[in-house]
């Protein structure tokens, strides 16, 4: 873009700055829009899963609900509670926002479409998202409210604990690709599912599961949304927040959901890779990437409306007793597996295809189960026991 601006007669330096600002604005607006739209998507899906309709009044099928919500939140009064630490209270939401939006620097929108392909991209990714915990803890501390404080403390304990399994889980793809750059990790994968990192060996599947569960907890998604557990802590760290600051918290939460999906897709699910004969179509690559991200986001939302919330001790149990040892086993196992099979690519391919077939088999089993459940749900609630078939 700066080349175009230079050709229009601008000096190289201002041209660079202007093009950077434009790119930043595009990505920022894209993130805000995605974060907003995801709130509606989540509410619609949750409605469907509970046999409701969800918001469907504003715009066609409720598609403009997020704009209405945003306008409503911006118009509300910005309250700061008595006795609150005003400075911390005011800046806390922006820490969350920066923590999530900082990732857009290395966010891969498809193969070759990113703002900057840092050679420490993945490292940057997991370190900048750690800023969120500062924001949450600051919000909890500064609100002068016991619920908020409890929420903030829980968030700190939870995010710090789960950062370790997430980091360990990411070590396996790093081991496989030998690079920390997002572009590099995407480049070692192919377009076909058995060329994705997730299906390379049993250990990569394991690390994928650990990474996925851990990042759910890091993004404060149910079943790990203890920091804002509605039934216990009213609204956790955002209890005292109103208006625009509350909207910022929510925006960062849903943008985080998108970031989670994006990272998972890029690292484990082959990013936006296309078959060789389509490699020139960047737009198609972005589409493929977005489709994969949407599937991951759907799974996350789906999990939220399936599972009940963990208790805080169960949460710690899961992290330290199950995920962390599992991550170690996956890391060591993958290292040994790669050492043994490094000169026999045939074995690697066979194992990868086999893992993919196992996944397909599980998927088929799953849909059979779904059909059974669908039939069961069509039986009216009030029907006598004799009418209900045994499954």
């Amino acid at each position, binding site marked *: 873009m700066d080349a175009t601006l230079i050709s229009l007669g601008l000096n190289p330096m201002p041209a660079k700055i202007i093009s950077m600002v434009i790119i930043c604005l595009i990505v920022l607006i894209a993130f805000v829009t995605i974060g907003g739209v995801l709130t509606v998507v989540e509410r619609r899906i949750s409605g469907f899963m509970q046999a409701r309709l969800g918001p469907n009044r504003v715009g066609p099928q409720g598609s403009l609900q997020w704009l209405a919500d945003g306008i409503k939140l911006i118009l509300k009064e910005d309250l700061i509670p008595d006795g609150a630490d005003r400075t911390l209270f005011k800046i806390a939401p922006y820490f969350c926002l920066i923590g999530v939006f900082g990732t857009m620097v290395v966010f891969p929108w498809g193969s070759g479409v990113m703002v900057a392909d840092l050679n420490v991209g993945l490292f940057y990714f997991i370190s900048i998202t750690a800023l969120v915990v500062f924001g949450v803890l600051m919000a909890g501390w500064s609100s002068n409210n016991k619920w908020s404080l409890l929420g903030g403390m829980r968030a700190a304990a939870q995010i710090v604990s789960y950062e370790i399994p997430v980091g360990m889980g990411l070590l396996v793809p790093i081991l496989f690709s030998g690079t920390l750059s997002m572009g590099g990790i995407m480049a070692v994968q192919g377009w076909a599912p058995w060329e994705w990192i997730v299906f390379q060996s049993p250990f990569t599947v394991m690390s994928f599961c650990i990474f996925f569960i851990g990042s759910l907890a890091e993004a404060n998604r149910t079943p790990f949304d203890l920091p804002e557990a509605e039934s216990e802590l009213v609204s956790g760290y955002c209890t005292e927040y109103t208006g625009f600051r509350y909207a910022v918290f929510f925006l960062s939460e849903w943008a985080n959901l998108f970031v989670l999906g994006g990272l998972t897709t890029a690292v484990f699910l082959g990013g936006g890779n296309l078959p060789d004969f389509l490699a020139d179509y960047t737009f198609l690559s972005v589409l493929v990437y977005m489709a994969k991200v949407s599937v991951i986001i759907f799974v996350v939302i789906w999990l939220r409306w399936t599972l009940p919330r963990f208790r805080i001790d169960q949460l710690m149990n899961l992290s330290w007793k199950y995920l962390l040892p599992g991550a170690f086993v996956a890391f060591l196992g993958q290292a040994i597996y790669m050492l043994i099979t490094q000169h026999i690519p045939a074995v690697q391919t066979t194992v990868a295809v086999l893992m993919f077939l196992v996944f397909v088999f599980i998927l088929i089993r799953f849909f059979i189960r779904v059909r059974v459940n669908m039939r069961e749900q*069509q039986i009216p609630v009030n029907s006598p026991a004799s009418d209900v078939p045994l499954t």
Partner: protein
Amino acid sequence: MMGAYFQNIKNGFTTVFEGMSITFATMFVRKETVQYPEVDITSNKTIAEKYKGSLMGMPDNYRGVLILENGLCTACQICQRTCPIDCIAIENAKCDKTKPTDKDGKPVLNRFTQKEAIKTRALTRFDINIAKCMFCGLCEAACPTGAIHHTKQFEMNRECQEDLVLRFVSDGEKEIAVKRAEEIEAEAEAKKAAKAEKEKEAKEKEEQEKGAEE
């Protein structure tokens, strides 16, 4: 010890698998939501049949919006006097003596005396202010012919308060009743005059006869 550990992991995955299949199935099964004010829930048969809950409606003794059966009303004004908050306004005029009948054409009995109800006055105004009404049911209990009673209707949102005043006598009916009352009045006047003349004549005759006897 180790067995329980792996059993936990297995349970974790299988229960999540089953739970997710249930929620996924629910996504595609019928929605239970009925978008109420837009959908007529009481007369829509497809909803009534498919609905899992109860669409039986209100119980029999539910006190909803008041309704008046003009044919039964004798304009006795008992309901107006019974109403503790004066939400009923009645005006009436004389009319021909009739016996009100119900839908089957049978004469209506007075509920308290068990005699046939007789209508001597016609309504020229019967307004019920639903905004004021507190749905106590006293008017229904007091009505001798059962003309006024509560319905099961509970949807009474209107655009403005004026719309909440239910008018059971239209302007046309009022005009007819008033005209008829004037006619009856005139007839009665004429009858009275005729009767008075007759009496006068009779008196005169008597006096004449008396005079003749003397």
